[in-house]
C-alpha cells in the first residue's frame, strides 16, 4: 500500500467527498457497538450521533439501535443525516415507519462481543460528509487509486492550486495528473489535511 499525504487549500477539502460517498476503509478496533465505534474511535459526540446522524446502514441494513448493533471486521457502515419523504422516514433509526422495511432491518447481534481489530468501510453522505469527512480524511483512510484519479481528472488544470503539497512515503512529489495516473492501480493510504 502506498502512503500519500496531501495538504490542500481549506476550501477544497470538499472536492474529496466522492471518496466518502463511495466508502473509505479504516483499520480499527472491531467487536464493539456502533456507538463505541463512532464516538470512541471516530470522535463523534454522543449528541451528534443521536441528533444529527438519523440514518445508519450496517452492511446495507438500516440500524435502529446504535447500542446493540456491533461492528465487525469487513463491515460496511454508512451514515446520513435525516432524509426527506416516506423513504427517509422509513430508513430512520427507530423510525415510526420501520415496519415498512422490517425484512432488511439490522437485528441485534447475538454473537457476543469480542475485541479484535479489522478493516471497516465507512461511507458518509450529505451533511454528515460535510461535517465529519474532513476529520476522517485527515486521520487517514484507505482508498482505491482509481477513485483518487477520477477526482484529479475533474480538475486537471487546478491540481496545483488545490493541492499545496504532496508527500508519497518520505518523499515530496508533484501533485500533477501523472502522479494520480501512476497511483490509479494501487491501494492508497491517504491523508488529507488543510495547508497552513
Amino acid at each position, binding site marked *: 500500500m502506498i502512503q500519500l499525504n496531501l495538504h490542500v487549500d481549506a476550501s477544497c477539502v470538499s472536492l474529496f467527498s466522492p471518496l466518502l460517498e463511495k466508502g473509505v476503509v479504516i483499520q480499527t478496533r472491531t467487536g464493539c457497538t456502533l456507538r463505541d465505534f463512532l464516538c470512541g474511535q471516530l470522535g463523534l459526540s454522543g449528541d451528534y450521533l443521536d441528533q444529527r446522524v438519523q440514518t445508519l446502514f450496517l452492511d446495507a441494513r438500516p440500524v435502529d439501535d446504535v447500542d446493540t448493533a456491533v461492528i465487525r471486521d469487513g463491515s460496511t457502515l454508512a451514515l446520513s443525516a435525516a432524509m426527506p419523504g416516506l423513504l427517509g422516514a422509513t430508513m430512520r433509526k427507530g423510525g415510526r415507519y420501520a415496519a415498512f*422495511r422490517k425484512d432488511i432491518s439490522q437485528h441485534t447481534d447475538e454473537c457476543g462481543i469480542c475485541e479484535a481489530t479489522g478493516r471497516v468501510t465507512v461511507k458518509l*453522505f450529505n451533511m454528515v460528509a460535510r461535517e465529519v469527512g474532513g476529520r476522517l480524511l485527515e486521520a487517514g483512510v484507505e482508498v482505491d487509486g482509481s477513485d483518487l484519479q477520477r477526482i484529479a481528472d475533474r480538475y486537471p488544470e487546478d491540481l496545483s492550486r488545490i493541492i499545496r503539497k504532496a508527500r508519497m512515503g518520505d518523499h515530496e512529489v508533484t501533485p500533477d495528473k501523472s502522479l494520480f495516473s501512476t497511483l490509479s492501480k494501487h491501494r492508497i493510504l491517504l491523508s488529507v489535511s488543510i495547508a497552513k
Partner: protein
Amino acid sequence: MDKILRIDMGASGGPAVKTEALGDYAGLGGRAMTSAVVLKEVPPTCHPLSGENKLVIAPGLLSGSAAAVSGRISVGCKSPLTGGIKEANSGGQGAQVMGRLGYAAIIVEGKVADDSLYKVFINKDGVKLEPAGDLKGLGNYATVEKLSAQYGKKVACITIGQAGEMKMSAASIAFTDMEQRPTRHAGRGGVGAVMGSKGLKAVILDDDGMKTRSPADPEKFKAANKAFAEGLRKHPVTGEGLAAFGTNMLTNVVNEAGAYPTNNFQKGQFDGASNISGETQAALENERGGEGSATHGCHRGCVIRCSGTFYDKDGNYVTKQPEYETVWAHGGNCGIDDLDVIAQMDRMDDDFGLDTIEMGATIGVAMEAGLAEFGDSQGAIKLLQEVGDGTSLGRILGNGAAVTGQVFGVERVPVVKRQSMPAYDPRTVQGIGVTYATTTMGADHTAGYAVTANLLGVGGSVDALKPEGQVELSRNLQIATAAIDSTGMCLFIAFAILDQPDTFNALVDLIGAFIGQPMTADDVTALGKSVLEKEREFNLAAGFTAKDDRLPDYFKKEALAPHNVTFNVTDEELDTVFNW
C-alpha cells in the same frame, strides 16, 4: 376562490366558457376537488379520451394565499394510462396565480369536433377562448415562448407538448415556474393526453391586478404562517438538506439500503450511484454556477427550495435540477450514470410533455427487450426522441411501460394498474409495496409520501415494529396524503411537522385561521377518508377489483439482491388496507 370555470370544448357552435358558483364543491380544494368532480360528473366506464371524460384543474385550499409552501395544484380526470381515477399534482406558478384569480377549479369538458387546437386566456376581466393553430406540434418550451411574446413575461402557463397532442398515455401537463419555463409537471397517468383529446393546448393565467387571498383571521394567520415558515427553515431536512442537495439526496441512501431499482428492477444497488447522487449533482451545479444553480424554489412562497437549475459545461441552461425520481428513472433504472445525459432527457421529457417516471421505466423495459443496452445513454436518448417525433416505435413507448412490455413480450414490467413504479423497490421496502399495490392511482410514491399520519391522529397510533404494522401504516399514510393533497401544501413539510410539535401546531393553526374555523385531527381524517372513498367508488364502477390491487407476480418470485428478498405481503393483507 369562489367560482368554477367550465370550458366546454364540444359546445355546438364551437368551444364555450361559463363561470358558475361552487355549489356542491364549496370548501374543496386540490385533490378533494378533482376527485369529487370526476366521481360526480365523469361516467366511470367512458373512454378516457372521449368527450365524456373531464379534465379538472384545481389549486389547493390555501393556494393564492400567503401561506408558505402552498403552491401545489391538482389535475384530475379518468386516466388513459390506468383506466381509473387520476390526480396528478404539480408545483410551479399555476396554483398561486389561479388561486388569486379566484377559481377553485377549471373543468374542461367535451372535445372539439375536429383536430383543431385552442388556448384560453384568463385574467381579472374574464376569459377568452381562441384558436391556437399556430401552436400545433410545438413542444412546451416553444409554446411558452410564443405565449410569453403575446401575453407577457408574468403570466403563468399550463400547456401540453407533442405527447399530449398525440394523446399518449405518458403525456404530462406542464406548469411554468418562476422563470416562466415549463419545468413543473402534473406528470402521472396521462393527464396531458386528456387535455390533448379535448383540443386544448394552453391555459394562460394572468393575475395582474388581483390580490393575495385573504384569510378569515388575518392576525392569527400571520402569526401561524410565520411560525410555520420558521419551523420549516430550522429543520435539518426542509431547512438544510433539501436546499443543499435537492430531493436527489435520496440516491445514496436508497442505494445503500438495496432498494434502488437498477436495470429495470433487476438489482437493488447501482454501481454508478455516487456518480449521479445529490451530493455529486450539487457539487457539479455549484461548480458550473449560474442563476439558481443548486438551490431554487419551484414557486413563489416556497421556503424549502429543493430545486435548482441545471446548466451544461459551457454555462447554457438545460433544464431545472432533475429531481430524485427523474435521476433514478433515466439514470440507475437504465444503467446510466451521467448527469448531463440525465439532464438532457429531463429537458426532452419537459419539452415533449412526458412523465419522467413513466418514460424512464418504459426505456428500462425497452432495454430489457433489447432495443438498447443498459447503460447506453445515446440509445436511451434516441428512444426518447422517437416518442417526441411520434414514430411508430415512439407511439408505443409513449404509451408507457405496460404497453411497451406487452408489445415486446417482456415479463418484467414494473407497473400496478398499468402505471410504472417509482424509485423504490417494493421487495426491499415492503410497506411502500403495500401502497403501490393498493393506492387508487396506480403505483405511486406520493400516495403515501406524506406525512405524520400518527401525529395527525389518522387511524390512531400504530406500533411500527409490529410485523403487521405496514398495512395499517400504509392505510394511515394514504388517508393523510389525500388530505394534504387537498390543501395545496407541498408534501415535503412532512419532516418538520413530524419532528417539531410547534411546527405541526402552527400548520393546524394556519389552516384554521385561513378557513375561519379550528381544524382537528378528526377533520383531517374525515377529509382524507372521504377523498379515498370517492376514488375507490369511481374505480370500482370503472371495473377495478381486488385483483388490481396487486404487484406483478415476479416481485413475489424473483429475489432482489443484495438482500435476496421477495415481496411477501399476502393478498389477504392487501385487501384489508381500506377496511376502516
